[in-house]
């Protein structure tokens, strides 16, 4: 008799059906009892044809009785594995999976089997992290700690989940009686946990993330709205002084690219002065300083009174020089000009030498 036998479909179906009647056993017991059955049934069919295969249920009952196992019976009196079809399908899938897995080169399947306990711990960890994500830190977008926080509950929960997961993995929980739907649920939960590992890891707080957040915190505090700012705080108005230290009025500012320095408008709090721009014809020029200011009502933010030039913070500043640079020669504006351009406030300007 040859040792190399192929399983024919009818033998496979029969063996799976018999397997389903031993669903109450744990995998090791089942393997002990049913290991080699496919080869034996194959021989039987080879010798007597598929007709020799009888009712798998009766066969299983005979096998159970001879092996000294309790015969499980339903209330209707049939020998009843809980979910024979589901179990048969799952057993089939498992057999097929193991056939494929054992064919992997380099005993990869053996390696994976050896690291199964690691997976039991990982799935427990994922489960607790999901709780954290839903109701703990993660829920507030605060990221996940490696040990879930959940106030003081994280660590005890993790320990409990690990114990449960390992016991399930060892077949001490959940598997007996190994009912079909429970196996499906376990399979789905495993797949679910596997799929969520990247998401959980992605949500973990790492040193790099903290640094990035801190950086974001620093830059994030700077106003994102257009306008000038100094060290992250908005600048409402600018007071230019000439080289001699005298205040200037009506200085237009642009940056190295020619962009006008200033904002289209200035945010102001009710009760604080709002700024009023200079005008170029009908166009507002917010880059001309100092801007005029107008008080507002604290109650509704409406302007009260006329815009006027605010007093400069310093009457004069110390004179400054720079070697090789000649400061602008300034012309003091006539009082009559100020009267004519009342809306825009006092005019002034520099005139290049």
């Amino acid at each position, binding site marked *: 008799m040859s040792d190399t036998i192929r399983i024919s479909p009818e033998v496979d179906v029969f063996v799976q059906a018999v397997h389903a009647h031993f669903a109450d056993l744990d995998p090791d017991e089942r393997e002990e009892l049913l290991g080699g059955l496919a080869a*034996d049934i194959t021989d039987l069919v080879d010798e007597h044809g598929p007709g020799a295969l009888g009712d798998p249920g009766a066969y299983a009952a005979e096998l159970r009785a001879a092996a000294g196992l309790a015969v499980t019976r339903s209330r209707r009196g049939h020998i009843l594995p809980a979910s024979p079809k589901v179990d048969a399908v799952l057993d089939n899938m498992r057999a097929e999976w193991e056939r494929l897995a054992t064919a992997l080169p380099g005993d990869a399947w053996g390696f994976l089997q050896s690291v199964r306990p690691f997976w039991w711990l990982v799935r427990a960890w994922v489960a607790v992290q999901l709780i954290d994500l839903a109701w703990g830190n993660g829920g507030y977008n605060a990221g996940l700690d490696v040990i879930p926080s959940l106030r003081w509950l994280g660590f005890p929960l993790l320990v409990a989940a690990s114990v449960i997961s390992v016991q399930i993995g060892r077949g001490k929980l959940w598997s007996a009686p190994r009912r079909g739907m429970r196996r499906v649920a376990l399979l789905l939960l495993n797949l679910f946990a596997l799929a969520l590992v990247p998401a959980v890891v992605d949500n973990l707080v790492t040193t790099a993330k903290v640094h990035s957040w801190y950086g974001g915190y620093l830059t994030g505090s700077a106003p994102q709205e257009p306008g000038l700012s100094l060290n992250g705080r908005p600048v409402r108005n600018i007071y230019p002084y000439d080289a001699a230290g005298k205040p200037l009025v009506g200085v237009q500012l642009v940056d190295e690219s020619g962009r006008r320095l200033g904002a289209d408008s200035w945010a102001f709090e009710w009760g604080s002065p709002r700024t009023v721009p200079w005008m170029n014809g009908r166009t507002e020029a917010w880059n001309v300083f100092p801007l005029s200011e107008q008080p507002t009502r604290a109650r509704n933010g409406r302007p009260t009174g006329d815009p006027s030039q605010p007093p400069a913070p310093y009457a004069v500043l110390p004179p400054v020089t720079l070697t090789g640079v000649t400061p602008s020669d300034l012309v003091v504006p006539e009082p009559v000009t100020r009267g004519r351009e009342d809306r825009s406030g006092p005019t002034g300007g520099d005139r290049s030498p």
Partner: protein
Amino acid sequence: MDTTQLLKGVLDLAVLAVVDEEDGYGYDVVRRLRAGGLDDVGDASVYGTLRRLYAAGALTSYVVASESGPHRKYYGMTPLGRAQLKSQRDDWVHFSATVTHLLEGAHT
């Protein structure tokens, strides 16, 4: 007479005797039992008996790998199995002699 009931009582002994001759896998043991005259023996009963004897420590088992088909599970004797075989064989000889004697007495 239904020999199945009789067989149940001595199947352990018969299986042990067959495996004692030579190690064998499930269907091989079935075949040898039938060749020995136990035509009515059921496959599943033999497999179950083999597994039970193995679980009780009377048999040892090893798998012979196959590259393209299911692995065969061979059974062999353990010292415990041999002791059990000897003891049960003695019991059987004694018992059958007694029954034979009774039957012959009833017949005469």
